[in-house]
């Protein structure tokens, strides 16, 4: 199966909408720590946009947007960002994810928290987006090797 839909309208509309969803998803990720939303929701939106493309233009054509083989590694990378921050704060003698202990000088604790959370949110966003796409791909591929 290459396409779910042969209709050009769907292909065009899907392609048109997807970037806006992605943009909104990014917005949600970056503003999550002081407004509604956050890494998870934003990531899910990103994933949704990729799934939309996958569904509209078919599997092969959508590979250029997000490669199938990238799903798991990128997801792990996202998780690694989250961990990295946690480990750094632990290395600094604090608790896991104690952002105020991030090793940057001349930055106040609240600023550190602000940026710490932001980076973690980005990591989570990437992880969620990639993982959801990976689940989708796994389901799609499940037909071949189930």
């Amino acid at each position: 199966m290459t396409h779910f839909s042969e209709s050009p309208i769907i292909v065009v509309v899907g392609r048109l909408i997807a970037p806006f969803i992605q943009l909104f998803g990014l917005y949600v990720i970056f503003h999550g720590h002081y407004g509604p939303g956050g890494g998870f929701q934003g990531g899910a939106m990103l994933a949704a946009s990729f799934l939309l493309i996958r569904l509209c233009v078919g599997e092969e054509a959508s590979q250029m947007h997000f490669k199938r083989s990238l799903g798991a590694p990128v997801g792990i990378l996202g998780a690694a960002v989250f961990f990295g921050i946690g480990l750094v704060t632990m290395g600094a003698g604090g608790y896991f994810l104690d952002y105020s202990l991030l090793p940057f000088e001349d930055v106040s604790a609240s600023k550190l928290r602000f940026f710490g959370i932001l980076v973690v949110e980005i990591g989570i966003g990437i992880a969620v987006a990639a993982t959801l796409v990976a689940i989708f791909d796994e389901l799609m591929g499940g037909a071949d090797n189930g």
Partner: protein
Amino acid sequence: MHWKLELILLVMLLLTAFISLKVRDLLAAVVMLGVFSFVVALLFVVMGAVDVGFTEAVVGAGVTTVLYIVALFHSTRETTD
């Protein structure tokens, strides 16, 4: 006004859930489930949980439904009940 909206949504919730379980075509059931999720998302917003509603809309109504549909395309839409 507020509680009327909530009541309407709750009734729709039950209705969509019921239809989704009753309908004989799995694809229709799954689409109905998507509607259900969307109603849930609206309900969350009404209840003041903006971000949960937001997530439910994206994940429940969006991603989950897509996943269901993919699975159905790879198996079957037929059902005996």
